[in-house]
């Protein structure tokens, strides 16, 4: 079985976000880049299938050269090969543009399953993985917290509002992962794993290699784009209530009822 995991490199979640000089992107000079946490769950899910039923795991990513580090991390965890689409023309692509690039790269790979995070924690778009499924013409099961494969079918558990749903899809299929770390923790890359990862195949491709041009998927093709960014309104710290336990409890109840009118 062949599994392709789509991985995006994002700023670490502890990063303080600052808006850049252009007013429509973020300041990246002091950012520590990591693998998108949800993609890490997808890598872990793929490696669990590699362990249980046997699978070859390919990491597919797009981004600048630094993205290699995230692919190497996944390889050190146990994935077999990596592919990076590194082309400056993809800068400024919208969600659909990115999905077209990844779908084109998928065409050149063999796969029964495609795994990825349900969203990347930078732009929080929640669309690229799903669009890849649509473009590849395969089913998508979203927000999975587990994945099992039997007889050409993938079965996942997914929590939705107020319920847990079990779904299955015929292979090939794409599964996006939600908060799987409540079910499992992604494995750490071991030292021997890191050494081995350096020798694993990692191929870099350009848009031309995929038969695409910048005007199909780049900034010019973007149907929607960010034209400005702003910081959230800074909350003013409120007051700390004084008194003994009961006084504070009474005062808080009064404030929430009379002032805030929320209870």
């Amino acid at each position, binding site marked *: 079985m062949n599994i392709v995991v789509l991985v995006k490199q994002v700023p670490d979640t502890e990063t303080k976000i600052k808006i850049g000089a252009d007013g429509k992107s973020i300041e990246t000079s002091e950012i520590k880049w990591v693998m998108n946490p949800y993609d890490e769950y997808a890598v872990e899910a793929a490696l669990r299938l590699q362990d249980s039923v046997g699978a070859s795991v390919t990491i597919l990513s797009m981004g600048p050269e630094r993205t290699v580090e995230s692919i190497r991390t996944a390889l050190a965890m146990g994935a077999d090969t990596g592919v990076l689409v590194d082309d400056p023309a993809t800068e400024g692509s919208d969600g659909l543009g990115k999905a077209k690039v990844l779908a084109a790269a998928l065409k050149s790979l063999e796969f029964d399953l495609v795994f990825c995070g349900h969203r990347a924690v930078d732009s*929080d778009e929640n669309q690229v993985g799903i669009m890849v499924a649509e473009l590849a013409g395969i089913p998508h099961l979203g927000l999975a917290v587990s994945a099992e494969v039997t007889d050409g079918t993938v079965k996942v558990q997914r929590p939705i509002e*107020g319920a847990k749903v*079990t779904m299955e899809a015929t292979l090939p299929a794409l599964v996006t992962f939600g908060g799987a770390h*409540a079910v499992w923790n992604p494995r750490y890359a071991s030292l021997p794993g890191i050494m081995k990862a350096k020798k694993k195949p990692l191929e870099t491709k350009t848009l031309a290699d995929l038969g695409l041009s910048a005007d199909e998927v780049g900034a010019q093709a973007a149907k929607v784009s960010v034209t400005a960014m702003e910081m959230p309104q800074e909350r003013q710290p409120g007051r700390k209530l004084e008194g003994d336990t009961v006084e504070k409890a009474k005062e*808080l109840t009064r404030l929430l009822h009379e002032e805030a009118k929320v209870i």
Partner: protein
Amino acid sequence: MAQGVCIITEFREGAFRRVSFEIASEGRRIADELGEPLLAVALGEGVEAVASDLGGYGVEKVYVVDDALLKDYRAETYVPVAAEILQNLSPKVVLTAASVDGKDLSARLAARLEAGLATDCTELKVEGGGLKAKRPMYAGKAFAWCEWSDGTWPQVASCRPNVMDCLAADASKKAEVEKADVALPAGNLTQVVSIEKDAGGKLDLTEAEVIVSGGRGMKGPENFAMLEELAGILGGTVGASRSAVDSGWRPHADQVGQTGKVVTPNLYVACGISGAIQHLAGMSSSKYIVAVNKDSEAPIFSKADYGIVEDLFQFLPAFIEEVKTLKSTC
């Protein structure tokens, strides 16, 4: 020539979900500004019986497909049906719900229609004859304003539940209902195997008006019973910080923060949560924030409207009693 604003409703177990009324209300406002009619696509088993109710929120005409095949949301049945209706209507703007199923539907539809999609929008405007959408990035550490390229229709925006103003329904207004004449795909690639409801029909965090959240300071899973009790009295739901989830005390569905859910309730009560930056990103847009923590230096206090510096095990029982008293008198 593209015309009209069209919403795609979400229908489950015989009723529209509240977010459908929110996007109808928002759609009405956008349609008025654009000088366009407001249309709706309503899919589901049994949806025809209630479709005209959307008129109460300003929808003029609803295109329905009511079929047993559409009982549960599945992309392979919903997407081709919705896409065909939209292709026939050719609307300028499509609004969808940024709910679990709605996110899947929106992305698939946008790819199929070759449309630009802005997801999880919290504010919409009309500018220069088109839509402009504000959406959070980095879990709300920053916001982006998105615009669509000139003349690219439809402009698709999914709207975050619980954020946009919902009109009070005008029951005297009914929308015109038309059965959409589209082919229904068999859909045999995906199956819903089972749906297991959470105990007490727990409200999802993203749709809750009150959230009582616990962190490492809760000391163990058994102590969340206290938060359940408080949430129960306030008509809310329980959330958790990443460390409570990582400790296995609560399921991930309860996690608030950059690697969990971004929430916007009217009231957020943070108990024993210090306030890591990734947690603050997920809850800072709450209308009112209460923090209960014994460490007066905890960063959570910088975001709290009302701070209680005290051991939560001492404070919460007293607070629960006070809230009970209040509730019994009003």
